[in-house]
């Protein structure tokens, strides 16, 4: 059972193609400019057309889930930052949600709103990063700088709030550690109101551009049924036409009180996923404005519930999930009553969405593979954990 089952390097030769030409095996990664980290894909190509693609992951495996089992509940939070390291707030959120669920804790309203605001900021920042890298994968270098300009503001706001820009460690079991700094809401509101016109700028560069459309329309189609079969969640699922979002489907925190829509598209291709993410940024903007309003109207209040000094959830198991920018990010916690998680499993959306890559890439060209990897929006820290 524990012997080596198969080896990655040994791909059997599939023989000749029509013209007596051999298929070529191409190692795409792990050190390649557009695999977004250390993803390796073993491609079999016929000319430039992909016959088969086989992702090979694990280059960034750090054993985070093993590490979780050695840490007490509060100490796990900084480790969750490092899963999807461009969206640390949603990771924190999913983790604290599951612990709170098992503890049966009530979260103060104000903490809920601050959490939601942080989540949505993180969603915008993650989508901005996605847009930057996806555009650069397709050869458009300039959107990268425009989106990073906006992302920088979000990171500054994070820094103002919790002192870190990327690995935030900003949520705690039962609520939040820190109150907002004075003037933070105003800064956030100023940025948020500006965001709409900035998104218009990216759209003007890309949405109508004929090259962008040619490169993305009809590329990497994954219909709703296939999405569900592969467990794909997040923007790819919504781009296929199913308006399913954890924020609405399995509501958490104060999302039921907020007014926002779930953008969907019908064609399930790369272009639609692009449009869905763009629309999600606009929806996040709506949520952020509502959050700003609420927080400005309720400037004081508890931000942490009644948390026992030593967090020891009762024995049992629970699962909680949030809509991370990549899809449904879930944590499955098994507790044996001790002060450390007995088992803490991450349901990583990147990992599960990446599984659909071979199907999406089949029959496309090498250039499209780059677009498809970009459109799934993987973060290898989360894929490999």
């Amino acid at each position, binding site marked *: 059972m524990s012997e080596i089952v198969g080896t990655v390097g040994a791909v059997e030769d599939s023989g000749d193609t029509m013209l007596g030409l051999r298929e070529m095996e191409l190692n795409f990664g792990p050190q390649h400019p557009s695999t977004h980290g250390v993803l390796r894909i073993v491609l079999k190509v016929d000319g430039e057309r992909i016959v088969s693609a086989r992702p090979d992951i694990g280059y960034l495996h750090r054993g985070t889930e093993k590490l979780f089992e050695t840490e007490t509940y509060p100490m796990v939070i900084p480790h969750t930052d490092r899963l999807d390291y461009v969206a640390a707030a949603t990771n924190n959120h999913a983790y604290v949600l599951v612990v709170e669920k098992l503890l049966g804790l009530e979260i103060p309203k104000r903490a809920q709103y601050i959490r939601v605001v942080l989540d949505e900021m993180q969603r915008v920042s993650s989508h901005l990063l996605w847009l930057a890298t996806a555009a650069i994968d397709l050869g458009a270098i300039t959107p990268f700088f425009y989106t990073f300009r906006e992302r920088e503001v979000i990171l500054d706001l994070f820094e103002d709030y919790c002192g870190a820009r990327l690995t935030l460690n900003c949520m705690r079991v039962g609520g939040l550690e820190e109150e907002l700094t004075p003037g933070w809401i105003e800064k956030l509101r100023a940025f948020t109101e500006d965001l709409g016109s900035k998104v218009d700028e990216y*759209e003007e560069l890309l949405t109508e551009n004929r*090259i962008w459309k*040619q490169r993305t329309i009809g590329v990497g189609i994954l219909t709703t049924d296939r999405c569900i079969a592969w467990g794909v969640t997040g923007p790819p699922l919504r781009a296929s036409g199913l308006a399913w979002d954890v924020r609405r489907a399995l509501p958490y925190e104060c999302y039921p009180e907020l007014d926002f829509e*779930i*953008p969907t598209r019908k064609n399930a291709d790369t272009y639609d996923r692009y449009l869905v993410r763009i629309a999600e940024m606009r929806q996040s903007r709506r949520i952020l404005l509502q959050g700003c309003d609420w927080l400005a109207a309720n400037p004081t209040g508890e931000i942490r519930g009644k948390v026992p000094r030593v967090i020891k959830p009762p024995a049992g198991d629970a699962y909680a999930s949030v809509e991370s920018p990549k899809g449904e990010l879930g944590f499955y916690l098994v507790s044996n009553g001790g002060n450390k998680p007995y088992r803490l499993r991450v349901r990583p959306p990147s990992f599960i969405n990446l599984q659909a890559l071979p199907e999406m890439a089949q029959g496309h*060209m090498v250039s499209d593979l*780059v677009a498809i990897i970009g459109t799934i929006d993987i973060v290898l820290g989360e894929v490999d954990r």
Partner: protein
Amino acid sequence: MDISESVLNYFLIPAVKAVVVVILVATAAGILTYIERRTLAFLQVRKGPNRVGPQGVFQWVADVVKLLMKEDVVPAKAQHFIHFLAPVLVMVPGMAVFAVLPWGPEFTMRIPGLGKITTAWYAADLNVSLLLVLAITSIGVYGIILGGWASNSKYALLGGLRSAAQLISYEVPMGFAVVSAILMARSLSLVEIVEAQRTHHMWFILPGLVSFLLYFVSGVAETNRIPFDLPEAESELVAGFHTEYSGFRWAIFFLTEYANMITISAVATALFFGGWLRPFPSVKALAFLDLIPPILWFVLKVAAFLFVYIWFRGTFPRYRFDQLMALGWKTLIPISLGNVVLVALAALGGMRGLRILGTVLWVVAAGAFLVVTRLRTAKPPTAPLVPVPVGARKAEA
């Protein structure tokens, strides 16, 4: 004609010109890399290289020195000789083309000890110089293919293959675009084409609007620049055909790319934008524009084209290989064929025919542009998204 004069005219002056051209081209290509980085930085709201020298203008010198110092790595299983030959094959045609580029008209200068010398701002005025440009520039593709193949790397091979298909395909519309200019000027000599624009009292961009667009698009493709930079597509093929090159061999590829950009821009200037002529060369009222020397006019026009190159790079994504081929074969070549017929018919009518063609083209283009942009303003920036009720099983298809 005594011997000393023929030595002077047929050996000394061309030799001096050759040396000067090579030095100038290499320098200009180097400076162009700096200008490109700087311009891109401005397009991208950042600062760009600004450390070496005032405003970083010597950045390219530092880069060249660094590249010279670098170790020249050759892959163990590469074809060593061809791997070595490829950059040479790319560079030599890239430099040779500059012999016939008409940077300015003839001029006379007085050199102490030699007397008055009449020479020109070009190394040679061949009567087939345009043909020579087309012929020589297409040799460069061999260097790219061979370099890609000899590197013994799959990425380089794919880059080389892409390059071969792309360069050969885009030669065709480019050739047709050039043909229309030849038809208008009734000459193959670049110098005579420029002069013809004086005698026709107009730049050939007027009747040659379509020809120029075709030429420039093909030119961008010929020089492997965004949106046609597939042979070296960084995000797909790592670095394409020069993946396995390092140090100064890589620099040769790099510099030649910029030299080729200058070539394409210079030919476009000569064919369609009046070369060294000032705007409206026959309008006396604008004679004050002659204060700017002809060579400067030429350089300014070339610079404008180079800026467009860089602007393109800062704006567009990259085509896919099959789309690039489709664009070349299914769009550009049919249009260029039709365009040649159109220009030929107009050229039959002489100067008057060309004028009519030019007027019609520009009026139609400007009119359509105005109408369509006026109509478009009502359109929202995003295609509307399908609103779906929460929890619905599936969006209504």
